[in-house]
C-alpha cells in the first residue's frame, strides 16, 4: 500500500540520483516524527514487560531502562509468584471460562436474529431493528442495579452463567448490527435459489448464510472475545468479591488496591493478562481491524 500508486501517496516519477537523495533528506522530519511516535507508543508496554522480569528491589531503586546495563539480572520468580500465590493462574482459567462461552452464545443468538432481520419479511422489522441500533450506545451502567438485584434474588451472583448471560445480552446490539449488515449484503439470488430447491429458513441459515459469513463471524468473534477478556466492570459487579471465579482484570485491580507499589507483582500480573490478546491481535490482526471498522459505532 505504500507504493506511489496508492491513494495520496508520493507522486511516482523518474528521478535522478541527486533528486532521490534530496527527497530522502527532505523527508527526514517525516520519518523522525513517525518513528518517534512509534517509540513513544511502545515505551509504556516495553517498560512493563522488562520490569516484570526484574527483582522487587531493583524495580524500587532503578529505572527499568537501566536493566540492560550489565550485570544483566532477570528472573522468572515474579511470574511464578503471581500465577500461584496471587491467584493469577486460576484467574487466567476463569477468564477463559467467561470469555469463550459468552462469545459463542453471542455469535449464535446474534446470527439467528440477524438472519430474521435480513431474510424473513415481517411487519415491524425496521422498527425492531432501530431498537437494536438505539441499544448500541446505551451504557451498561443503566442496567447494573436491576440486574444485580435479579441475580441476588436468584442466588446467581458469583456464578459463570450470570456473566455469560449478561455479556451475551450486552454484546448483542453490536453483534446483531454487524451480522445483519453482512447477511443482507449476500446475493439475494443465492437465498432464493435455496428456497426454491427446498431449503427451509433454517437450512438456508445453516447451510448457506453461515458458511458464506465466516469472515464476518470471525471478525465478530475475535472482537467480542477480546472485549470480554478485557472487561472489568461486568465481572466486578456480578462476580463481586468471589475470588474463585474472578477473571484476571478483577484480580489485577484488587492487586493494585492492596499492593499498589509491589511493582514486581503488578507488572507480571498485567503482562499475563496481555499475552493472549497480543497473540490474538498479531495472529488475526486483519479480522480484528475488520471488526473495528464494521463496528465503529460501538461505545
Amino acid at each position, binding site marked *: 500500500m505504500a507504493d506511489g500508486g496508492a491513494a495520496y501517496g508520493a507522486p511516482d516519477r523518474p528521478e535522478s540520483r541527486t533528486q532521490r537523495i534530496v527527497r530522502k533528506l527532505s523527508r527526514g522530519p517525516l*520519518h523522525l516524527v513517525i518513528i518517534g511516535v512509534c517509540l513513544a507508543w511502545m515505551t509504556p508496554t516495553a517498560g512493563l514487560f522488562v520490569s516484570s522480569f526484574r527483582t522487587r528491589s531493583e524495580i524500587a531503586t532503578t529505572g527499568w531502562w537501566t536493566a540492560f546495563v550489565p550485570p544483566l539480572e532477570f528472573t522468572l520468580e515474579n511470574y511464578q509468584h503471581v500465577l500461584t500465590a496471587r491467584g493469577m493462574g486460576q484467574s487466567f482459567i476463569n477468564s477463559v471460562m467467561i470469555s469463550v462461552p459468552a462469545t459463542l452464545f453471542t455469535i449464535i443468538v446474534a446470527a439467528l436474529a440477524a438472519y430474521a432481520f435480513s431474510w424473513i419479511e415481517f411487519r415491524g422489522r425496521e422498527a425492531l431493528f432501530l431498537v437494536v441500533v438505539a441499544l448500541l450506545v446505551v451504557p451498561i*451502567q443503566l442496567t447494573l442495579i436491576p440486574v444485580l438485584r435479579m441475580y441476588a434474588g436468584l442466588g446467581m451472583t458469583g456464578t459463570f452463567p450470570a456473566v455469560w448471560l449478561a455479556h451475551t445480552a450486552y454484546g448483542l446490539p453490536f453483534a446483531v448490527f454487524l451480522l445483519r449488515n453482512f447477511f443482507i449484503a449476500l446475493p439475494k439470488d443465492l437465498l432464493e435459489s435455496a428456497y426454491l430447491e427446498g431449503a427451509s429458513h433454517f437450512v438456508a441459515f445453516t447451510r448457506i448464510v453461515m458458511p458464506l459469513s465466516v469472515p464476518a463471524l470471525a471478525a465478530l468473534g475475535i472482537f467480542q472475545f477480546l472485549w470480554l477478556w478485557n472487561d472489568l466492570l461486568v465481572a466486578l459487579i456480578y462476580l463481586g468479591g468471589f475470588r474463585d471465579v474472578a477473571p484476571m482484570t478483577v484480580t489485577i485491580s484488587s492487586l493494585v488496591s492492596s499492593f499498589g507499589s509491589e511493582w514486581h507483582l503488578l507488572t507480571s500480573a498485567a503482562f499475563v493478562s496481555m499475552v493472549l490478546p497480543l497473540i490474538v491481535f498479531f495472529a488475526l490482526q486483519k479480522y480484528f481491524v475488520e471488526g473495528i471498522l464494521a463496528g465503529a459505532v460501538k461505545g
Partner: protein
Amino acid sequence: MRERVGKLTASPWLYLAPAFALLGVFLLYPVTNTVYLSFFDRRSEVFVGLDNYIYLFTHPDTLVVFRNNLMWLVLFTGATVTLGLLLAVLTNLVRYEAMAKAIVFVPMAVSFTAAAVIWRFMYIYQPAEFVQTGVVNAVMVALGFDPIAWITTRSVNNFALIASGVWMWTGFALVVISAGLKGIPTEIIEAARVDGATETQIFWHVLLPMLRSVIVVVAVTLVINSLKVFDLVYVMTFGNFETDVLANRMFKEMFTFGNFGRASAVAVILLLAIVPLMALNIRRFRREQ
C-alpha cells in the same frame, strides 16, 4: 390489501426470541427500572422526587465529577482524533505504514485494567532527591524540571489519566481514518496537484472535507467512550484526588455508599448525555438504508 404469502413458512419470532429475551431482561427492562429507581431513596423504598438529581447537581463532590467528564469529552476526543488523523496522513506516506499502524494500534488489544497498571508505572513518583523509576518523571528530571506526583496532584492528574486514554484509543482513530483515506480516489489528489495545490492545501481543502464523515464516526465513538470511561479511573485512582467520573461515581454510590437511588440517578444522567448521540446514530442508519 392482504397479501397471501406462499413463501414464508417459518416465524421470524423463533429467530428473534433468544435475542430479544436477553435484550429485554438485561437491557430494556433494567434501563426503565433504573430510571424509576432514580426517584427513590437509597434502599429504593421511599419516593424522593428529584432529590437525588438535586444532590448530584449541587454537591461540590459530584460537580467535580461533571467537570471531569467534560474534560475527558473535550480533551480525550480532541487529542485522539487529531493524533489519529495526523498519523493516518503521515503513515500513508511511508513504506513501513503497516508496521507503524500496528504499533500504535496494539494498546487497543489490551485491557483498560492492564493499561492502568502500565500508566501507573509510567507515572511513578519519587521525591526529588531520589532516583526516578517512572519514565515520565525520569524524562522531566533529565530535562531539568522537578518530578511531579502525576496521580495525586490535583492540577495535573486528570490530564495524566486522559493521556493514558489517548494512548489506548489513538490506534482506533488511526485505523478507521486511514481506511477512509484509502477510500479517496488517487485521481482527486492528482487533479489537485495538477491544479497547483501544495500538499498542505490538499490536506485542508481536499482530504479533510472528504474525511469529514469518517471523522464524525470516530468522534462519536470517542465521545461515547469518554462519557462511559470507567476502568482507567477505577484502577488508577478509584476517583480519588478529584479525578472521579460518572461511571466510577455510580460504582461508588452502589458499593461504597450503598445509595442505590443516587447511583441510578448518575446512570440516568449518563444516558441523557448519550441520547443525542443515539439519535445521531439512528438518523445516520436510516439515511443509509
